């Protein structure tokens, strides 16, 4: 067995802390961006209101203006437009009509494409900080792996720091294609929480793996599990926004304004729902894989592929909840808010599985003892 490089491990710990601090800074800036953008939006809104007063046509019926006003959250997404009661899964929300020449600019795009209409310098700095933090973070994770000559997911500390890294990397990757800066506060916030949980909650000095974990399956099983969890983290944030946005849309339809102003930087609830569905579908496939790989590993290690060990129970529960989520999307009356709740519940189960089950529930993971 390769000896452990303690010096490198020390750097890893240090960089982990620095990365956490930079993430925290990014979080603050993202939050600041939302706050300042709220101001800009209000100003824009006043302008538009004035414009509307001047307009002689039937402005209240002009979808252009209305959508324009409330950003993507306007009362005319596909869901609300119909007379029936159902949502249509997969129906593409209509884009807002920026090019119809009504003046002004739209705030968000339903496909979360970059529009370049609103300058958000603070958010851009926040993104830059995220990139720096992710680089530091990646160094820390890789250094830990190199120092121990093994994959860096042998205990909760490593699982959590690697998971946080994947959350931010996946987020940044998405960011190159899609304008999901609106998620930044949530993603950076969650990453900071994960880093704090890892470094304060369960700091674990570097060490070799115990014999039970010395298997190629750890690479296959755990890496996909962490990746799936990272995707579910993103959809968790999106589902919460979806619920908030949905409420705001309902208010906007009822004619009252209000709610959180920054939600105007967020695409419509339907758009959020469709996107979290797409990501959840990928996450679900990965989780299914995790489940199967875990069963194969259990078979190789303990001789039985499934024994309803606490960890297995919760992996199963999570799988079933997300299967329920996928079903909900094809069931009348279960799309929208309810699906979002299922996605949130599924993620809560993941968090529970990771924190409480790992620490408080007795499981099959001690290897010096007698058989039963």
């Amino acid at each position: 067995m390769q000896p452990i490089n303690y010096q490198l491990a020390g750097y890893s710990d240090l960089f982990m802390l620095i990365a956490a601090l930079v993430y925290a800074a990014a979080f603050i800036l993202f939050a600041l961006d939302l706050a300042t953008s709220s101001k800009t939006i209000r100003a824009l809104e006043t302008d538009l209101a004035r414009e509307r007063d001047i307009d002689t046509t039937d402005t209240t019926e002009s979808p252009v203006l209305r959508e324009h006003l409330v950003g993507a959250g306007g009362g005319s997404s596909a869901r609300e437009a119909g007379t029936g009661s159902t949502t249509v899964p997969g129906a593409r929300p209509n884009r807002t009509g920026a090019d119809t020449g009504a003046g002004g600019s739209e705030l968000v795009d339903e496909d979360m494409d970059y529009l370049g209409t609103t300058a958000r310098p603070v958010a851009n700095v926040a993104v830059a900080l995220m990139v720096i933090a992710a680089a530091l973070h990646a160094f820390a994770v890789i250094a830990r792996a190199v120092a121990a000559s093994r994959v860096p997911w042998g205990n909760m500390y490593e699982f959590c720091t690697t998971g946080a890294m994947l959350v931010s990397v996946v987020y940044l990757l998405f960011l190159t294609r899609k304008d999901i800066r609106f998620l930044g506060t949530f993603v950076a916030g969650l990453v900071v929480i994960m880093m704090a949980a890892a470094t304060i909650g369960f700091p674990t000095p570097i060490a070799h793996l115990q014999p039970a974990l010395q298997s190629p399956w750890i690479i296959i099983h755990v890496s996909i599990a962490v990746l799936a969890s990272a995707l579910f983290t993103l959809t968790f944030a999106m589902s919460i926004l979806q619920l908030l946005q949905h409420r705001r849309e309902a208010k906007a339809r009822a004619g009252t304004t209000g709610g959180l102003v920054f939600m105007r930087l967020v695409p419509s609830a339907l758009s959020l729902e469709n996107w979290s569905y797409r990501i959840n579908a990928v996450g679900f496939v990965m989780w299914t894989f995790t489940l199967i790989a875990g069963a194969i590993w259990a078979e190789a290690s303990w001789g039985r592929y499934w024994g309803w060990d606490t960890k297995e129970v919760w992996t199963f529960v999570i799988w079933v909840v997300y299967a329920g989520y996928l079903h909900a999307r094809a069931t009348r009356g279960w799309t929208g808010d309810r699906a979002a709740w299922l996605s949130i519940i599924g993620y809560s189960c993941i968090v529970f599985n990771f924190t409480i089950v790992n620490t408080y529930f007795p499981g099959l993971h001690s290897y010096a003892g007698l058989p039963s």
Partner: protein
Amino acid sequence: MSQQDNVRVARDEDARTEPSRHDQPQQPEVQLPALGVTGTLRFAWTQLTSMRTALMLLLLLAVAAVPGSLFPQRPAGPEIVNQYLEDNPVLGEWLDRFQLFDVYSSVWFSAIYILLFVSLIGCVAPRAVKHAKVLRSAPPRTPRRLSRLPEYGTVLLDPSGPSPAAAVDQAAAYLRRRGYRVEVRQEPGGGASVGAERGYVREVGNIVFHLSLIGVLAFMAVGGLLSYSGQKILVEGEEGFANTLVSYDAFTPGGAFSEDSLVPFSMSLKSFEKVFDRESETHYGQPLDFTAVMEVQDGTGGEPQERILKVNHPLAFGGTRVYLVGNGYAPEVTVRDGNGDIAFQGPVVGQVQDEVYTSLLTIKVPDAQPDQLGFVGFFLPTSYTGEDGVAVSIDPELFNPELNLNSYHGDLGLDEGKPQNVYVLDTENLTELNNRDLDTGGVTLSVGESYELPEGKGSISFDGVKPYVGLDILYDPGKWGVGVFAVLALIALVVSLFVRRRRVWVRGATGPDGSTVVEYGLLARGEDFRLREENLALRRKFEQLWPVTAPQEPGPSSSSTASTPTASSTSSTTASATAGSPSTTPDHPARAVQNRPE
């Protein structure tokens, strides 16, 4: 009608042609009595196989699985359950009544998943039959109003362009190349249209996925019937194990187990090596490697062979596998009785309590005369006595092995034939001889030492220490089926989630000015977020195939949106970039002719 309405209506039509979705509106309650027996049954069946029921059952299954992680489960460890029952007599009894210590074989858990699977069959079987028919039939007819589809576009051809029928033929050929199944039909009002559909395999994936889940469950049931699992502890250099029922320390057969399925083999532990971390400061003494050298004999005859057994690397004998799941120390002791005769000699398996291998020892000596003798206490691999005078183990390896025992004499209670746990000494009818708190003190022995028991009851000597391994011996013929179906389910899941099933219709007609007008519409079946991209791809192709007239300027109102490639307006920037440069290349007609299907 607004654009959004287009989307909605189109989707609703889709839903109507899609009875397999099973989410019919609830029938009013009042109708129930009028349904009659068969009617009621059919109603119940419809309800059971509805998506909503499936969803409810799924969520219920998730909730029902949770208690199994909150309460100790009998299959995992009956002793822990008994302990729990002892500690919580009232609550425990109630929990037991509701089978909360056997959640996964409980009536209610079984009821949920059996209902779920009945619902699944009721849901998927008709879908499979229907889809089998769909697979053999032509793509659907062209709807009258393509503009009501979620993605829609019109291409106005130059007078020099092909006739409606020729254009449709070309479109059909292109769609076929794109993987669509196509059917060209004559339109009642003149002209022609093509109906095209692709992604049939999506539905196949969905059906195979659900059926595979049944396969997984079926083979789990097979395993439950035919499998067995047993445990055996082997001490280094001691008597081995032969695969017969009497050899096991513990044995759990499946429901339909027969002794014939015990394949013949035997094995013993030649030596056992442990490696602990000696470099890390924080994890000093953490186990790094366990290696058991086994002497095995596969089958009845043949020479014994040496084989290595490690964690994660089981030994296989036919379908039976042997796993290294635990290890510990077995101190060797000799006990002489009050008459001076050897009443017990040999290794005693210690139950490991912690990571430094502090081991609980129970020695029962029923053969001792005149009184039976019993010992309980600890074996400490590296004993260290702190300032409080209590000895503890501080290392998992044998640096200072020591026995710390209390002794008893009297009746061990073994003669009544009641089964007893070998690891528990029933002290009810025993009198204490040695204890730290008695004047006699406890028995403390290092290797090679002996101790004379008080009152001339005998003596005990500590002769040495041997390692032992705990083995699980398992046979489950169902696991291959479970594995195959699980992997099949995964593959089918990917197909069903990521293959896009969509329909395209293209209609060619003669426009008011005599030139050809091509109208087309797209419809997704199931989730499809890239329908717009498909629309744009088609449009690009059409403009390449045919000489196209520039579209009219989009007007200010929604009435004009139908003529933009997508049913909404933002993307007209994209559209004009990609599609808005009509009649650019003169070689289009030529290429169109080349592309013409024969």
